[in-house]
């Protein structure tokens, strides 16, 4: 007697391509995905509660550990939230340095996200090695400026911890010269490869209205065709002074997300070039000398959001007038972008799940906090 049965497969928490300890409870009919239930929390480290027991400055290095690819962007959002809460002015030069660092972060994040995505498609690490190549040079720049490569802890309330070293700008210019060829190469890796195209086009479609209803942001939302970017929608820092485009996709599939990331790298390079033009004329030093680092903000609350490489990153802080935040909440883009995963995966094959997950570009440190 022939009989068919649906199979429940646990992908994760220990699995080679779940980008950390993430679990997907997948119901499959043969190779087709019928349902998917994302399960997370395996990396929960009580981040928000710990932050409420620390002083404001002590939290700065903790934010590095949220999305460990983009420590500079996390620093920026947190610093902005505290500055709003305590009313600290940031000098112009410091703002430029901040934008420079965050845009460099965006390039390195997107490069490695693309590399990891192709790795999830089954390429044996060579594309990943391609994606990681220029990342190394950017990390060298971070090391020059902050002394650390990954956990930079570079931002302070009212500026950044120290000014750019003299060798930074020449090295950056050299990197910018090499960057266009590198980005083109990364794009050709996908556009010219028939197998990659077959695996990416029409896979994991996220319709714009579904994306909006889930509150998705970042390249995933823009891949679905909605030109929403916090840098344009609510310009913070000095972003209103730069000329850049917000790339959008057409269908909202894995391929569109890839193309949006590639194009964003080009736009980030444009922004960095404009920063380099305007930086010498910027007023002030790298930090506001009057800003106290041991802040004691007045009673109140503040919310600051930035366009982090993965999406809209927000910090919500409530102060009770002491040196510690009363409430500290992170709006983590990885977490919110992950919620429509089941909708994106239903009806596709098992092999597509990991590609779709790779195209969302999550970091579990940020999802679980």
């Amino acid at each position, binding site marked *: 007697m022939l009989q068919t049965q649906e*199979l429940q497969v646990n992908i994760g928490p220990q699995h080679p391509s779940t980008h950390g300890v993430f679990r997907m409870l997948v119901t499959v009919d043969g*190779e087709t995905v019928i349902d998917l239930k994302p399960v997370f929390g395996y990396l929960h480290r009580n981040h928000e509660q710990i932050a409420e027991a620390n002083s404001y400055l002590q939290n700065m290095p903790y934010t590095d550990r949220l999305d460990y690819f983009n420590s500079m962007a996390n620093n920026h959002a947190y610093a902005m939230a505290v500055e709003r809460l305590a009313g600290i002015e940031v000098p112009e030069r410091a703002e430029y340095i901040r934008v420079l660092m965050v845009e460099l972060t965006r390039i390195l994040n997107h490069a490695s996200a693309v590399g990891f995505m192709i790795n999830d498609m*089954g*390429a044996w690490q060579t594309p990943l090695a391609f994606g990681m*190549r220029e990342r190394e040079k950017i990390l060298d720049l971070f090391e020059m400026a902050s002394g650390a490569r990954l956990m930079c802890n570079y931002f302070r309330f009212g500026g950044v911890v120290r000014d750019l070293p003299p060798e930074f700008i020449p090295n950056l210019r050299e990197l910018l010269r090499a960057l266009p060829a590198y980005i083109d190469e990364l794009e050709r890796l996908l556009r010219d490869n028939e*197998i990659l195209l077959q*695996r990416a086009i029409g896979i994991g479609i996220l319709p714009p209205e579904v994306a909006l209803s889930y509150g998705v942001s970042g390249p995933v939302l823009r891949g679905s065709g909605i030109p929403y970017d916090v840098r344009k929608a609510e310009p913070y820092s000095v972003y209103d002074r730069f000329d850049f485009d917000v790339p959008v996709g057409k269908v909202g599939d894995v391929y569109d997300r890839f193309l949006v990331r590639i194009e964003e790298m080009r736009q980030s390079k444009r922004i960095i070039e404009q920063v380099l033009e305007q930086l010498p004329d910027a007023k002030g030093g790298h930090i506001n000398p009057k800003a106290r680092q041991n802040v004691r903000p007045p009673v109140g609350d503040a919310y600051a959001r930035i366009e982090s490489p993965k999406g809209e990153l927000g910090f919500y802080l409530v102060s009770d007038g002491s040196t510690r935040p009363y409430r500290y909440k992170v709006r983590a883009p990885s977490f919110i972008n992950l919620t429509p995963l089941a909708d994106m995966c239903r009806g596709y094959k098992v*092999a597509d799940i990991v590609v779709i997950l790779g195209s969302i570009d999550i970091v579990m440190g940020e999802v679980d906090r």
Partner: protein
Amino acid sequence: MYDMLAALINGTLGWGWPEWALNLLSYILVVTIVLVVAPLQMLFFTYYERRVIARMQDRVGPNRVGPEGIWQPIADGVKMFTKEDIVPQAADRIVHFLAPCVVVAPTVLMFAVVPWGPGMVPVDLPTGLLFFFAISSISAVGLMMAGWASNNKFSLLGAMRAVAQMVSYEIPAVLSLIAIVIVVGSLSINDIIAYQTGLIVSNRDLPGIPDLGLGWFVFTPVGFVAFIAFFIAALAEGERTPFDIPEADSEIVAGYMTEYSGMKFGLFYLAQYVLNFLLCAITAIIFFGGWQGPGVGWLYAQGITPENPNGNGLFNVLAGVLGVFYFLLKTYLFFFVMVWLRGALPRLRIDQLMDFGWKFLIPLTLANLFSAALWVAFTRWGPAEGMLITVGWSPVLRWLAAFVVTLAINLGVYLWLTRVYAASQAERRRAELEELIAAGS
């Protein structure tokens, strides 16, 4: 092997052994050689693959154990032997144990018919090619056993994929080889190699071509299409990228091998690399002349004199060494291509793989079969077989006609199939997209 031993022991040494003792000795020798050579090839292949991929990824690769890391595979082997063997509690213990044996045994048996050099084939079966593919498909049973007995869902998915893939891709692989069998008229691997003498053109097709051992099938339209189709199918059979779907590490962990550890895992690993070696070897043998190459035939012929029809021992050995060199060179070259693809390409999805096999490769190889029949008709048939067109044509003209006709057919079918296949892919994609958009709104 028996003839050689008989000549050596009873002829040269004059010991006068009975026939059964000679038989026994030759069997023991053959088995020993096969069992030693197979793992050695596997050890070399793992090292070779890791070094080549490391170069592609701007790394060095294994370089610590011994000079340039040459003993790394031995160290890995020792590690495999000493590791704990874990069997899941809910597994079917007997089948779980048997599966690796069922996978390894056929791959080792396949060595029995592989010729390494002139006269250096362990068993020269008249149906060698049939034996090779009949035996290789047994390992699919072992894969299914492994997947089912492990009681693991990844294993089961991997085993289903493996069996579906191996069964589907055996068809184009065998169809492309049948084209060659039609041209040669024999299933014996030695006959197929012997056919490929000559220079670009086989001197069986066109007598009078000087023999440089370069009359390979790949230079004919039939052989070229068969080679491409066979090599693609071999990638799928050997579970190599871009068809390494059964053990897709980023999707189903390690496929049917997920629940295996220690030496059982090592056996799967061994089976896989030995199979890869054999597939590369058979590609080299069938389409690239195996041990044929400039100088081998000439050396072999030097020893043959009227009073010494089996050839002079020294020249036989020299020809053998040169033949083995050519054979291994070609085999390693194909393995290099496999490694290269692994370093460069991502993996296809299982449905795309099936599509490609059934909708593209099988029609192509079927058309190639037709071309092969025409090739035989043009080059060899006469009025007796009803081939009246070629009456009175010179061999060169007949060969040229065969070349042009088969080239036209194969090229036409290829171009037509690529268009049809690409169109079907695009249509499928559009249908999928429309379905999704309809479901979304």
